């Protein structure tokens, strides 16, 4: 990655209004906001999991959850509990007040690296080593995957919760949870490192280790590859209409437009203002507004359908490591590699 210089906001753009700032003092690995918009859960590099009140920024709880650092955090859709994992062989489930409810074993002898609650119902998917499993609301095992070709590098649920996708070297492994549906593998000879499933379920997009973005249209199985990124595209985000796919992998954000026959053989919308590599991307719920975070500490808002100029900006203290909207789209939480967390109000 290039050396970091600071993004200079254009004149006329609005600085985001922070509601509060908090400092954890350690790298923020993962951040989530509960669906009711009340609880912000943060996982830190030193192994702490901290709950903050979204309204005030007040600390609600802090627990030393994982020796050696938190690797992932996922809040259950009903907000009653959340799951975390770290360099340990079990995932942990906590109450919304930070009390440990139970531990779920992954694959013996390996770390649990990813946790993901299903958006509908209380299924929890966990990935450990080359396997992933799905558990019910009380931790009862519902599904165990076969051994995949390599360690699972990401998990994501289809927006309606009917299927789960796991990525690793060699492709995407999709497991449906509806009667009669069969598992699918979207094969590709490459190490996949990030995944974003369009909200309408029609397109699965993945970033690859070899600096490309690969996507599959689920109905036809047809796949395409967008290459030429200078860095690994770790950040990917779909807008709520499943038409725009924003991708990182550079200081500029490349936004592919899936309207009409695109994005194959079309020019993407290029959003250029960050000076450092874009590390985080999140579309605002029910809107075309995109939030982006960069290695250079800047956070920018864009409206790519209307133009390629940023419409809002803010700064954190270090590389942006998390960027999450609340469900209403009125609050945006960002966090950085030094442990700074800021909640902005977005009109």
């Amino acid at each position: 990655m290039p050396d970091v210089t600071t993004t200079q906001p254009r004149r006329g753009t609005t600085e985001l209004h922070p509601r509060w700032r908090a400092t954890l003092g350690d790298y923020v690995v993962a951040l989530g906001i509960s669906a009711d918009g009340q609880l912000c859960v943060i996982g830190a590099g030193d192994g702490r999991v901290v709950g903050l009140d979204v309204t005030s920024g007040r600390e609600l709880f802090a627990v030393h959850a994982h020796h050696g650092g938190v690797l992932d955090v996922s809040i259950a859709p009903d907000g009653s509990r959340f799951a975390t994992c770290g360099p340990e062989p079990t995932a942990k489930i906590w109450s919304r007040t930070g009390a440990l409810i139970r531990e779920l074993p992954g694959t013996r002898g390996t770390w649990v690296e990813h946790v993901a609650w299903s958006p509908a119902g209380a299924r929890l998917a966990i990935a450990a080593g080359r396997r992933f499993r799905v558990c019910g609301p009380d931790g009862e095992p519902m599904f165990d995957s076969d051994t995949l070709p390599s360690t699972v590098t990401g998990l994501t649920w289809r927006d309606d919760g009917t299927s789960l996708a796991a990525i690793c070297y060699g492709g995407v492994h999709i497991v449906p949870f509806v009667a009669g549906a069969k598992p699918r593998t979207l094969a590709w000879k490459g190490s996949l490192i990030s995944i974003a499933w369009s909200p309408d379920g029609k397109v699965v997009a993945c970033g690859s280790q070899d600096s490309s973005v690969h996507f599959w249209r689920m109905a036809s199985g047809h796949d395409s590859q967008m290459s030429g990124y200078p860095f690994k595209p770790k950040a990917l985000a779909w807008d709520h209409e499943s038409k725009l796919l924003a991708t990182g992998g550079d200081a500029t954000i490349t936004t592919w437009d899936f309207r009409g026959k695109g994005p194959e053989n079309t020019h993407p919308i290029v959003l250029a203002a960050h000076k450092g590599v874009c590390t985080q991307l999140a579309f605002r719920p029910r809107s075309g507004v995109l939030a982006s975070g960069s290695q250079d500490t800047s956070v920018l808002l864009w409206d790519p359908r209307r133009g390629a100029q940023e419409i809002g900006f803010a700064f954190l203290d270090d590389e942006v490591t998390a960027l999450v909207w609340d469900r209403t789209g009125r609050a945006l939480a960002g966090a950085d590699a030094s442990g700074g967390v800021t909640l902005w109000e977005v009109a």
Partner: protein
Amino acid sequence: MKKIPVTVLTGFLGSGKTTLLNRILTENHGKRIAVIENEFGEIGIDQALVINAEEEVFEMNNGCICCTVRGDLIRILGNLMKRRDKFDHILVETTGMADPGPVAQTFFVDDELKHMFALDGIVTLVDAKHVHLHIEDSSECKEQIAFADVLVLNKTDLVSEAELDALQRRVTGMNSMARVLRAQDANVPIADVLDVGGFDLERALATKPEFLSPEYPFEWAGTFEVEEGAYELLLGDGPDPTMTLVSAYLDPGVVAHDRVEAERALRIWAQPALPASVATTIELGARQAASLQLMGRGPKRFTLVAPKSGRIGLFTQHLPAEFELQLVRHDVALVPAAEHEFTAGHSHDEEVGSVGIHLEGSIDGDRLNKWISQLLREKGLDIFRMKGILNIAGADNRFVFQGVHMLFDGREDRPWGTTRRANDLVFIGRKLDREALTRGFEQCLT
């Protein structure tokens, strides 16, 4: 931001990797060390973070070339960097059968790792007692030796001094760039393995200037004054069934190991050699190498004839001491006017070896680029590592570069200043063709 150094420990099962690892971790060096272990060893240390991970090698496309990298390292090192108590040093202990190539390449191609970590060195442990069990048949064993920046010949207490010397000659023949250390119970100074600078060309040159010295297929050159007439070459029992010999007349005052003479001998060496038995008469100064047949036990006498008196250079494949070699006239051994032992550049091992090329003059950048690109495209899999310092025409600064398989990394370095401008290239690899490499490099001269 200072990059965190990474040391890779390789070596066959039983070579002493875990012993060395434990020694590094228990020594009071004040470093915060994280260990990534692909082999489940017995590390009983609390101070260090030890991560067990299964080796995951995959192929990735990096622009137009393919290379293999280690997915487990990308993932784990990426996670480690999210910790505030960042580490001073990372140790990667590979499995006994691991190919060090993908490990090294990972640090060349992954953008995040390149930014945060610097590969400091590949340290290969060699079980001096048992390495001969694998070295012939195992490509992994050869690759681990060929890739190393530091070779630790371990368990020296289990073999004789002569066996150790032979082993050292052999591994140096395979990898002329590596520093060779001898150890019992892996008791090498920690600084010699943790702070190697093996991928730092500047450091490599400062600590081991001879690594770019020319390499020849002969280990020894002797200069003799001869009269017209017959001489005898006496050889005792030695380690090889044949030995190649080249002789050449020299101008007065010139010594055989002079670079110009050595290069001349090299050209003769490259031609097919005449097989010579004790019944053959070998003419001194003939423009053909002789391959002395040494089968069978007991001393051997070869007849050499000098067609005229003068100064003669003898170039021998092995050191005279290995065969108790003597040049004799009227039962009196001749004492050389000058003699020189060369760095063992040739390989006893036909498969894996080093080739060093020294060229005077300046290099055409475009031609070099074309040659290297084509070379790596065709032979990249067989070229494990390469290093070079070049005098590019029109540039005031030295151009330094190094590579691992098809990946390479070059940059302008400090100005030449008053140092003599020249070009040095070293390749370590499998089935390297010294002649073709030299010709190719020569064609890049302006």
